[in-house]
């Protein structure tokens, strides 16, 4: 069960139990929902963007530990970034989650790298990427992100 233990390593379970920036904030400037068509999971993200900077990033929704931890880590990583920088990190994250390569980590992603094992569980990759696609949709002003 090494892969499995890797997948559910402490850091991830901890984020799952104590998600950061969880819950609907009092105000926001950008919003989107992310829908996982396969499992019906729904996350909602709430951003406050000022002068191109992600001042706050919150999310809500009930989902699996992978999605929860990924969202939690993502909000921590994203807060304070410019949208341009955020896009760059999103690009790196997509590469990290791409099962067709063997990349293990990107320095720029910090704790988010603990999610790398997810790519060994192809049916779960969408759990990890859902909140990221939702933030991307929110920044772009699109209301819904769906994973196919």
């Amino acid at each position: 069960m090494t892969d499995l233990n890797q997948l559910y390593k402490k850091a991830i379970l901890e984020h799952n139990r104590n998600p950061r920036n969880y819950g609907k904030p009092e105000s926001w400037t950008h919003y989107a929902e992310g829908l996982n068509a396969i499992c019906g999971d729904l996350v909602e993200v709430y951003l406050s963007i000022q002068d191109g900077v992600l001042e706050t990033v919150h999310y809500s929704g009930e989902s699996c530990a992978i999605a929860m931890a990924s969202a939690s880590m993502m909000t921590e990583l994203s807060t304070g970034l410019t949208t341009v920088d955020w896009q760059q990190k999103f690009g790196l994250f997509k590469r990290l989650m791409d099962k067709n390569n063997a990349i293990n980590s990107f320095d720029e992603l910090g704790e988010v790298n603990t999610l790398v094992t997810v790519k060994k569980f192809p049916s779960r990759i969408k759990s990890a990427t859902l909140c990221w696609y939702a933030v991307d949709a929110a920044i772009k002003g699109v209301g819904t992100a769906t994973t196919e």
Partner: protein
Amino acid sequence: MLREQFPGLNVQVHGKPLVYLDNAATAQRPQAVLDAINDYYLNHNANIHRGVHALSESATVLYEQARVSMAKLINAPTMKDLIFVRGCTEGVNLVAQTFVRNRLKAGDEILISHLEHHSNIVPWQILCEQTGAVLKVIPMNQLGELELDDLDQLINEKTRFMSVVHVSNSLGTINPVKKMVQAAHDKGVPVLVDGAQATPHIKVDVQDLDCDFYTVSGHKMYGPTGSGVLYGKTEHLNSMPPYHGGGEMISKVTFESTVYNAVPAKFEAGTPNIAGGIGLGAAAEFILAAGIDKISARDHQLRVYTEQALKQVSGLSIIGNAKEKSPVFSFVIDGVHAHDIGTIIDHCGVAVRTGHHCTMPIFQYYGLAGTCRASLAFYNTEQDVDVLVESLLKAKTMFQ
């Protein structure tokens, strides 16, 4: 032993013997079904119905014998009342578009139930959009049973059609469809029964149910993927316009006009899934030989055993506790999300489904995004259930 006839059960998953508890998604097939498919491709490989040569003739006989076997399985009055389709979904769409569509005007009502699979919701929503008709829903209760007290009010003078599921794929509930058909017929409303989850588990008798249409999904009843039948009462099938245009469904074509063939050919345009149809016939014969009563009895044993066994997992709640149900267990566990359970127990060889099982409205009712669903078939064993329980306990431990 019957189980040994299912070669797909003999695989290893992550180094563990497979414990297949995803039968409501698709069943395993007995060797006899695979043999029938291979026999067609090896010994009778030809197109059907239109050939004078020997292979075409024998392929046609095999295909039409399969129709006879299916008619026997669901006690249709004649094999001609059965149309081969890809599965339940195509069956429902066919009826919506060719039988119901012409009878609808804006404001008319279609009645379904809260327990429906998306395949018995979305075709009606599309039809409502096309015609201005309105979708009405028979409510459910906490047990996962339909609330039928107000059925007589729900079926009113605007109701043009009712379409209800026989056995719920998510909760296992067996609905009293015979009674429901009667209530609808009392008001002159025709009824389709979605039997996707019925034929693998319980005796189906379309004449006794007196339903107007009945859909069967081959891949759920131990038959091939891409196979199924739609049963319809003769008078309906005769009066319906065709669905697909193409070869086989015509008697005469000119560019000016075309004469359609008789039922069932009228609804079977193009080359069908010949191997699939023949395999489905073998699946029907398998069930007839095994005895559906024996299968139902074994289902009951497994249901009782599993209910008991799952009590060992604290924090586990079974969603759907109908009095009449097939061995389907939708459940949630406090503090562990369904997908995480699914992933973890998969590593113990246990195959279950997680999510909404194509029945989102059911889980909206319960305020859940989804569940873990263990769905059993007669070939599952008590040991399979024990491995499930063990693996669930492991999942809980990981999340402590």
